[in-house]
């Protein structure tokens, strides 16, 4: 469990990140200039218009893609490859879980090289499966489960790994609305009860406001941070109560307008000549 860290050093720093894809048909600037910081124990949601390079940003942060320029730092250390203290939950749960392993095997796999005793590993796995409500399905295979449950397995795998930061890339985009609400509450619970630092990417405006303590609104591509909005809703969130709050509606409307401006390209990048 993360201890209280000095406020001086942020957990995650992204500084002037830029990514240009070179291809035979010319180069495409996916990310223009993104800078933001995230503190330990925060739940930050990144939201942006579709095709704004959210996944590119995440892959750069996760060390899976090399940025064209700019720096990503995790706990003061520059990210050049996948950092060991970071876990990812992908949108495509069906392709991120290994179908030849049981639920338990999938959760266990990343722990194998962690130099833990068998008992310690078992404890972590059991604990993570209980946390996502899947302790009864440990011996099943992922493909025997529904989509929402498969995504729970992926979350359990990340929880058992005990990362400093959990990165989720549109994790609930492919599940139905009811399951989605359950999974949103699961993410809130993990954040609140375990103090997990979570960076959550979504294209769903309601979801961003409901989940986040901060919402980072991205512009359209080439992307920059259009707004870094603090969500001043009570920490205890409830699908019915929170979503009915006037403040929720205000924030939601605000983010919605920002996204619309982003789509139309109206917002002007500070300190930049019109692209």
């Amino acid at each position, binding site marked *: 469990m993360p201890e209280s860290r000095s406020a001086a050093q942020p957990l995650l720093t992204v500084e002037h990140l830029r990514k240009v894809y070179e291809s035979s048909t010319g180069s495409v600037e996916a990310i223009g200039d993104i800078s933001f910081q995230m503190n330990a124990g925060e739940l930050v949601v990144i939201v942006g218009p579709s095709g704004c390079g959210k996944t590119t940003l995440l*892959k750069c942060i*996760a*060390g*899976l893609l090399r940025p064209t320029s700019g720096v990503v730092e995790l706990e003061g250390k520059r990210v050049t490859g*996948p*950092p*060991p203290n*970071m*876990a*990812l939950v*992908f949108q*495509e749960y069906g*392709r*991120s879980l*290994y*179908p*030849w*392993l049981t639920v338990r095997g999938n959760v266990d*796999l*990343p722990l*194998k*090289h962690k130099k833990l005793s068998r008992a310690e590993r078992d404890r972590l796995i059991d604990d993570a499966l209980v946390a996502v*409500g*899947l302790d*009864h*399905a440990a011996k*099943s*295979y992922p*493909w*025997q*489960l*529904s989509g929402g*449950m498969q995504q729970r397995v992926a979350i359990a*795998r990340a929880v058992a*790994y005990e990362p400093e930061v959990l990165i989720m890339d549109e994790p609930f985009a492919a599940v139905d609305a009811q399951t989605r609400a*359950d999974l949103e509450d699961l993410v809130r619970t993990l954040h609140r009860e375990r103090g997990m630092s979570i960076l959550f990417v979504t294209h769903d405006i309601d979801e961003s406001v409901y989940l986040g303590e901060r919402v980072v609104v991205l512009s359209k591509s080439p992307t920059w941070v259009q707004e870094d909005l603090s969500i001043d809703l009570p920490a205890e969130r409830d699908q019915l109560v929170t979503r009915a709050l006037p403040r929720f509606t205000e924030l939601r409307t605000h983010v919605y307008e920002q996204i619309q401006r982003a789509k139309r390209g109206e917002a002007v990048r500070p300190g930049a000549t019109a692209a």
Partner: protein
Amino acid sequence: MTLYTSTVVTPRKPSRVWAKIGENTAYALGLPILLLVIWGIWSSISPAPFFPSPLVIAEAFVETWIGPAFVNDVLPSLGRLAISIVLAVVLGIAAGTVIGLVRWLRELLEPIFEFFRAVPPPVLIPIVAVLVGANDTMKVVVMVTGAIWPVLLNTIEGVRSTDSVMTETAQSFAITRSERLRFLVLPAASPRIMTGVRQCLSIALILMVISEMFFSSSGLGYQIVFFQRNYLIAQMWSGIVLLGLIGVLLAVIFGFVERRVLRWYHGVKEVERA
């Protein structure tokens, strides 16, 4: 909140299972029995020297193969076949994994593979015999050089096409190279590998016979050619029947292994179809 939407496999009722097994057996054996009966009637109506009746062949089968010939000819053949299959599968998977993972190696080797694959292994028999002598090694080399290709090429293709999200998952959790090989690359490639192994078995069986037709004085293939040349027609047919039975045996063993190794794969396919 319901968590367990049940896609869990429910076992079939026992009576239906037995009915299904009975039905399958009837389908599997029905046509062979029918053909044997027709053949038997035909050969008794118009006897032909080259097509003796099934009963004569059965008699020859017992006389020829149950006894010393089994130890002297059949067992050595089967031993060489087994060694060759194991070698072809192990070497094919090992080399295929390395080549599939290393891009420059793949691009370097693939054109050459196309060339070597196109060479029919039987034409290599005299050359191999000169190189290693006319012995068991020669036969094994010939079988392996023919049977390795489907395993090798399928492994390369299977390893190469490992799902990108699965690979990124392994990377993001900093899973080590050997773990990645064992828990990701090889299982992901296993459906393709098993396809290769299936083809490998039949090629190895064909080459087993062919490799014993030259520079040989024992073995199943040698015996069949010997019977042919000496007009021992019923015995020759019994040898061919024995080859067929070996093929069936290989298929049964393969099916057993395949069901174990690819249990997850068939499960996924079943869910996708549902």
